[in-house]
């Protein structure tokens, strides 16, 4: 497959072996690529450091979601049972904290969990059903038993021949160019 340089998405290199991949990833990080990624069938630890990824802000988002759930749960019960339609049952307080704890707790957990779920997928830019990488047959093994490093063509340090040489020096199996709109 001969790629047209203008529609080139990037270059992928395949690995079979985890330690070799780890070393290669560190080299890519040190080379100074910014638009690049590693695709693996399962999470590899130490990879964050090898790639130089900063910790995600997701937990703060979830903390916010949880607090919102708590506030909403409290406000809802206060409004419904004590203000809008006060129900006097056996002379118990209209808004007693103990009786309201279960619903407060459940809504805290519910909104937190929804924030985790939707927050994580949207931060990852998913759902995204089409991606140039899916056009590569070889890349299908990224969800099975192979590991890939992908350098995107938009990376400022990307030079077709230079990058190919660099990737070849990493010790991976096969280097492949992936285009944005290849002919099948």
């Amino acid at each position, binding site marked *: 497959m001969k790629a047209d340089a203008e529609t080139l998405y990037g270059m992928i290199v395949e690995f079979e072996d*985890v*330690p070799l991949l*780890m070393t290669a990833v560190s080299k890519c990080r040190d080379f100074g690529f910014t638009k690049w*990624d*590693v*695709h*693996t*069938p*399962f*999470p*590899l*630890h*130490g*990879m*964050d*450091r090898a*790639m130089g*990824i900063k*910790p*995600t802000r*997701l*937990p703060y988002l979830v903390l916010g979601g949880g607090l919102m759930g708590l506030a909403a749960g409290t406000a*809802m*019960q206060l409004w*419904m*049972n004590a203000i809008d*339609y006060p*129900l006097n049952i056996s002379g118990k307080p209209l808004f007693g904290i103990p009786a*309201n704890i*279960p*619903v407060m*707790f*459940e*809504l805290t*957990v*519910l909104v*937190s*969990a*929804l924030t*985790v*779920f939707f927050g*994580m*997928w949207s*931060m*990852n830019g*998913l*759902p*995204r*059903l*089409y*991606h140039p*990488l*899916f056009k590569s047959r070889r*890349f*299908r*093994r*990224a*969800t*099975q*038993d192979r590991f890939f490093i992908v350098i995107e063509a938009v990376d400022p340090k990307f030079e077709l021949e230079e990058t190919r040489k660099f990737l070849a020096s990493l010790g991976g199996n096969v280097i492949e160019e992936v285009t944005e709109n290849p002919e099948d």
Partner: protein
Amino acid sequence: MKQSVIDPLNNTVDDPTRPTELVLGGQSYTTITETVADIALEQKTPKAWYVAFAFFASLTGVLFLMIGYLIVTGVGVWGLNNPVSWGWAIVNFVFWVGIGHAGTLISAILFLLRQKWRTSINRFAEAMTIFAVVCAGLFPAIHVGRIWLVHWLFPIPNYQAMWPNFRSPLLWDVFAVGTYALVSLLFWYTGMVPDLATLRDRAKGRVRQIIYGTLAIGWRGSHRHWHRYEKAYLLLAGLATPLVLSVHSVVSFDFATSQLPGWHTSIFPPYFVAGAVFSGFAMVGTVLIPARQWFGLKHLITLHHLDNMNKIILATGSIVGFAYATEFFIAWYGGNPYESFAFVNRAFGPYAWAYWTMVTCNVVTPQLFWFKKIRTNIKVMWVMYIFVNIGMWFERFVITVTSLSRDFLPSSWAYYKPTLIDILTFVGSFGLFFTLFLLFVRFLPVIAMAEVKTVMPIADLAGDENRPAGDYHGDIHPKRRKGDK
């Protein structure tokens, strides 16, 4: 790792110097993928599957017929009578919700405790949770009588300008079970996305590619994604842990906050949670053993896994037994004549047969799991699981019915008997549960492939030095730990 056993699939001999191998038979990433993905994609559906599916789908049909009959006729078709106004509907509800708990325990609590053996069974267990909660949710919905007013359970503005009473434990139930169902579903689906992507990438037909592709929402194993994904998974586990403990506690409040002797006890929340985990593990085992047999998963769901599950059944079963004893002790020690009557009545009254069935199944049976021979014998343990399932259903029956049928006023006592409709509805709920389960084992990744790959001993990477990173979090690759800078 050398093990002094003849059976290559027996990894129940503990060598304290090495972690137990959780994946047997010299598997590689490739073979794991093939084994699991081919169940959904390549394998010819076993004939037994069709037979089982036809059978359970018919039972599901019976369930919906019964529900239809109930709706058009009214709750009079059930065996409820004047003192026993809560019958099988609530018993079945508590039973099914309890079943679900093992799934969350395996997926969330064992995850936080870094019990790596959970990886092979968590997908099964989580699926079971969701299907059990589906069955559970059915009963409160249909038992309200006027089912077309079921939305009154929720705080939705309605034409009466009235709100639900948040001081009622029955309303807490709505929130607890609703949250539980939704969070379990999110957890299950989040865990499944990478595996659905594997199925998408292996699927041959166009239709399957589209379906799995849509479900996989474009997952491509990017490490920048994995990075957030793992954090999200950890957060979901952290949220699901207190949630699962809260759910059965709230369910037990339905009973414990009432004034009825035998219900009004503070031991209920922990005792219900232990019982839930106990029954849930038994149900996981009930479905896991045939599945691992039929789909050739013995090297992934090993005897070590089953052995560990049986130990949890033993532990929680003992807690349940201890709780029964404590209830009796407090009934006597508390000096409340109604309370002590309720308990003597349980053991020696008209429902003694149910009580002793429960004790035999829940207290005596699990004690056999002290013996390793029994913990590692597939056939025996499966029979034991059935006993536990029966026992835990009877526990809910005993709690609900004995206290109601003989309360404070002897003139209002009555004996409760289920009708055929009650029985068929309950049997039908098993049909629904197993139908969903059969669909799951046929079409979805039954084992969390991505997770299993993280706990594999890799044959071609000798020594711990090169062992790939272990669990989903915190387990730093040995090489990286020494610092690469």
